[in-house]
């Protein structure tokens, strides 16, 4: 009996819940209204961003309290490229070029940051504070630099465009189509992240999370591993930022600064740290709750929301979705432990 339950837990629970959510998202446009489709499209973008933090916070234990830097950089570079605002580079203005810059620049910046921070053994709260300072710094730059829109930000950013240079261009503006494109990119990002954390590379990362020194004694270059995963995370955050700019047709200083850096923490905690899908669903849930609560009560919704967050943190330490999406390995460990306990009892 125990064995069957265990098998069910191990193999199916996660898979089944994944499939249910996938089908739900796939068929949503059939019965959802125009506004709902538009909302969910935007929330997927936040979801990708949330996963980018989870991959380093939940799996490697790097607390990046300033992750909006990468999101904002992605968004700004997508904008500057597609609006042909970078001197000498105006010949590249396709969505592809925007995405390459929007992903590449944050990743490069993460490598640079990581090189100086991780090799200097800056970690834990020091790292968090440093990242926070960097994000506030970038927000200041964005506000003060009028070429990139200053406080008001940049408007009228071109939508995502499928194109063959000089031959063909198709702007993805139709709501349902845009929904599926973004959903596709979200699923792609999830599969990619999931492959990374479940690869041998990922095993070393989770070992670093558990005991950094021991991994180092085995001869691994821990800072290098951290730089690599940080760059991956920054690239995905940049992708989310780039999509944000194209979907909202707007980018502004708030997206690169403190507020965004804090909001993403809430998404990941509410959804469930260290589960990827949990973090993504956390972003969707929190944004949905915000929209829903502020609809039904314009004045007091923020109090209620804060109360809900407190309840979640107190009673769902693994996050709302943490239990459904938690990792196979951890679950199997638990089962082994619980089996042992039961055999001892017997």
């Amino acid at each position: 009996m125990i064995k069957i339950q265990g098998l069910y837990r191990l193999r199916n629970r996660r898979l089944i819940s994944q499939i249910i959510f996938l089908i739900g998202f796939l068929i949503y446009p059939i019965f959802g209204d125009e506004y709902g489709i538009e909302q969910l499209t935007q929330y997927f973008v936040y979801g990708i961003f949330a996963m980018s933090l989870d991959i380093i916070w939940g799996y490697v234990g790097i607390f990046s309290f300033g992750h909006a830097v990468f999101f904002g950089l992605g968004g700004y570079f997508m904008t500057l490229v597609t609006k042909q605002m970078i001197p000498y580079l105006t010949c590249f203005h396709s969505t592809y070029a925007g995405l390459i810059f929007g992903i590449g620049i944050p990743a490069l910046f993460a490598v640079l940051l990581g090189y100086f921070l991780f090799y200097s053994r800056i970690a834990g709260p020091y790292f968090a504070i440093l990242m926070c300072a960097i994000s506030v710094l970038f927000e200041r730059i964005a506000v003060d630099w009028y070429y990139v829109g200053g406080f008001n930000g940049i408007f009228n950013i071109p939508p995502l465009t499928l194109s063959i240079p000089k031959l063909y261009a198709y702007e993805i503006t139709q709501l349902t189509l845009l929904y599926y494109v973004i959903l596709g990119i979200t699923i792609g990002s999830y599969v990619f992240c999931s492959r990374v954390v479940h690869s041998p590379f990922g095993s070393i990362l989770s070992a670093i999370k558990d005991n950094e020194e021991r991994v180092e004694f085995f001869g691994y270059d821990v800072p290098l591993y951290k730089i690599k995963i940080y760059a991956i995370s920054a690239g995905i955050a940049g992708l989310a930022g780039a999509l944000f700019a194209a979907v909202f047709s707007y980018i502004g200083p708030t997206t690169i600064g403190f507020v965004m850096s804090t909001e993403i923490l809430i998404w990941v905690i509410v959804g469930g740290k260290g589960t990827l899908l949990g973090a993504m669903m956390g972003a969707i849930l929190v944004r949905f709750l915000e929209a829903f609560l502020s609809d039904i009560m314009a004045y007091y919704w923020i109090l209620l929301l804060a109360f809900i967050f407190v309840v979640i943190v107190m009673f769902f330490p693994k996050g709302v979705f943490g239990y459904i999406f938690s990792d196979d390995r951890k679950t199997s460990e638990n089962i082994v432990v619980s089996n042992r306990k039961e055999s001892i009892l017997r």
Partner: protein
Amino acid sequence: MKKASIKIGVILPFSGSEDIAGPMCLQGAKMAVAEINGAGGLLKGNKLELVVEDSQTEAIIALEKAKKLVIEDKVTAILGPVISTARNLVMDVMREYKIPLLYGTDYEGEACDRYLFCYSAIPEHYLKPFIPYLFENYGKSIYLLGSDYVWPIKTNEYTKRIVSRLGGTVVGEEYFHFGITDFCTTIKKIIDSGAKTVLTLLIDKDTQTFLRQFNKHGLQDKIKLAVMAFNENMLSSMPNEQVEGILTCNHFFSCLDRPETKDFVDRQRKMFGSDTMVSYYTESHYGLIMAFKNAIEKTQSLDIEKIIDAMGDQSLLSGNGEVTMRRNDHHMVLNIVIVEVNGGQFVQRKYISSISPENQCAGQKMR
């Protein structure tokens, strides 16, 4: 049978950095709706209904809410938001769905769109009478302070033009990031510059910080302070000695000694309690709904394009004299008041009627 209601969306900040403004704006809108519905509604007895949303003082949230109001609630018009960035973003939605935005916050000017109506004091409204008043009474050197964003910077471009036209001098000009806590060096610079007046265009919370420190240095008696966007709410939230003698200028103050103002404030107090704040935000948002109602009555239909055409060149009596919404640029001809704080109250110093700014669409084509 119950008549269908005419919905007006409201996007205002009830949380975030501008959360003081939201409730004051909403009070005006609520009273307008109550009065219209109390008088039997519009057209054939259709009631007006407000659908209220919190913009959280975030442009992106305002955009989200605008889409929601337009697509889901199918509103006929949207009232709000407060910050310029949010207005620019929301306008994208309004243009796409061809629905008018009723905007009632003082801003930097030059927003021009067929679907945008601004019941706003723009720099020209208040600075045209205010700077000459300052120069006549306190001397011709002025120090400019502002928060570092588009409203103060654009406004001061205009200030500098007037100052040079009047033969005055700008002895200093500084812009600060939001949430600044220390004005000491600035205050020293102000003293050294020998400025007779200081004109501030800071956001609410920074204005309070500045006033506190300015007062601590005992400068209130030596240098005249002119504080823009200073309203009843800020006045009541600060100790009397820190605000004594401040000059400000706008299109409405609840202290005005005019029958329509007294009536307006009384109606507000009756509806929201005797200690409620009534400020220019309240008046402008009330006026916008009334102007919209007039336009619907004039056209006798809910055809938005016709309503938009009827919005222009109408005069109405709101909280301070007769004002006019112009057809050519959808901006207002307003009556302006200069007031001074005296014993914790605004006291009227000068009344200037019908200030008509230059065409805000000049050099642009109304889309």
